[in-house]
């Protein structure tokens, strides 16, 4: 390609875009919608993962000892817990403290111990912290096997379900994105096919005069790229506003959720969306020009 031809390519591209303005708008909207939905799914997945890991990392394991554990064994169990690989610390919560905590929850007017007939039914338990969230499960299983440990409790269910949901969202998102991407490519291809068709005669003449395929392709390629880029731009702007709006409301309603805030995440998405827009656009254009070059 020669530099002086670049001007020609851009003029031709512009001519085509102007000539088929409605199809152009439709193609841009399709690309934008597809990328917008891709963006929504990405944000949902990122947030679900973030919330899940946030919960996991604050997670502690509660290892309850049997009620009949002799007092002198309690410390030994503690040592055994601390020897489990991946355990950062293990703090004993004696049954008296547990009862106090329980009483605090019921309110101070009740004398809980008295209500229970003077016998503390609670077991001693250890609050165990893991060095890393992904160790929690294996640690819990190891502790379970230690003598005098009655049961182990951690937020397995909540976290597990959350991660499961995140995985589902991810799959669903991917499927939706693939379908939408195909639709977007098809619409871009259609728009450009229209542009190519109105110029089929011109293209045939160009070929007989000795134009190379790329000389003919470039303006359409640029048109596809243009559709993709503008579509991506629209999607990014909508995502940015939409996401910030949602986040602002979510943080009012559920302030404890560790959501990813707008700026950082959308900025990371921009690159991906723009790249995808360009791929969709240029793919669409190459598909539609192909047939007309067989002269």
């Amino acid at each position, binding site marked *: 390609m*020669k530099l002086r031809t670049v001007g020609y390519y851009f003029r031709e591209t512009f001519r085509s875009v102007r000539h088929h303005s409605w199809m152009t708008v439709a193609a841009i909207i399709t690309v934008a919608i597809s990328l917008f939905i891709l963006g929504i799914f990405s944000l949902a997945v990122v947030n679900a993962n973030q919330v899940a890991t946030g919960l996991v990392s604050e997670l502690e394991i509660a290892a309850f000892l049997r009620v009949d554990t002799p007092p002198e064994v309690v410390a030994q169990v503690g040592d055994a817990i601390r020897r489990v690989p991946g355990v950062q610390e293990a703090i004993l919560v004696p049954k008296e403290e547990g009862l106090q905590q329980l009483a605090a929850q019921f309110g101070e007017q009740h004398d809980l111990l008295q209500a229970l007939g003077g016998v503390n039914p609670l077991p001693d338990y250890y609050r165990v912290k893991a060095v890393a969230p992904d160790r929690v499960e294996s640690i819990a299983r190891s502790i379970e096997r230690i003598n005098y440990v009655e049961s182990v409790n951690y937020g397995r269910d909540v976290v597990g379900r959350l991660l499961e949901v995140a995985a589902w969202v991810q799959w669903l998102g991917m499927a939706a994105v693939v379908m939408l991407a195909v639709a977007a490519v098809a619409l871009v291809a259609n728009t450009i096919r229209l542009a190519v068709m109105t110029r089929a*005669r011109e293209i045939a003449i160009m070929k*007989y*005069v*000795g*134009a*190379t*395929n790329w000389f003919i392709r470039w303006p359409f390629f640029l048109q596809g790229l243009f559709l993709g880029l503008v579509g991506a731009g629209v999607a990014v702007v909508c995502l940015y506003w939409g996401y910030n709006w949602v986040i602002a409301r979510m943080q009012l309603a559920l302030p404890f959720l560790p959501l990813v805030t707008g700026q950082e995440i959308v900025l990371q998405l921009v690159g991906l969306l723009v790249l995808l827009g360009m791929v969709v656009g240029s793919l669409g254009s190459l598909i539609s020009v192909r047939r007309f070059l067989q*002269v």
Partner: protein
Amino acid sequence: MIQFYNVTKIYPTGVYALRDCTAGIEKGEFVFLVGPSGAGKSTFLRLIFREELATRGQVLVGGRSVSRLRPREVPLLRRQIGVVFQDFRLLEDRTVYENVAFAMQVLERPSKEIRQRVPRVLQMVGLAARANIYPQHLSGGEQQRVAIARAIINTPPILVADEPTGNLDPDTAWDILQLLLEINKGGTTVIIATHNREIVDRLQRRVIALGQGRILRDEAKGVYRREA
């Protein structure tokens, strides 16, 4: 420059347009291709610039087999050949000047060169005064000249013209022929498919006569029809 070796062309419809044609055209020749309608003249020309491919046999241009060119070499072949189509194939939404300049733009010629050369060639075909007019406002003879100007603008070594005098009055037809002879004097190989008996007989140039797809005659100083 151009060689046909046992060329047969069968269209997808099953029509035999050419049968076992063998002929050679040298550099700088001026050749008439004659024959009744449907004889295969246009097909003969189309095989040269590869609008169609031979079903059997070989067509060589500049020593290269046209059917064995790689896709990226096809444009290079076509740059060797200026084509004047039977139906002109001008672009309606471009002026005479733009139609001719188009053929140079497509080859990525510098715009300065285009600005200099296009007026000169329009002058040569007698259309200098019509440069800014759209093709639909031109007479048939004028459109014919635009088509010729576009075909020669890049000075190809071969010029192929399909019925360049069809539908023209005898005087205009003769003017066009003079123009093609002029171009041939410059060293361009010129091949013309025509029905115009008067011109063929008058010029006494090489004649290849086709009939039902076969080469019936190939004579150095031929006429339109050899009476039996």
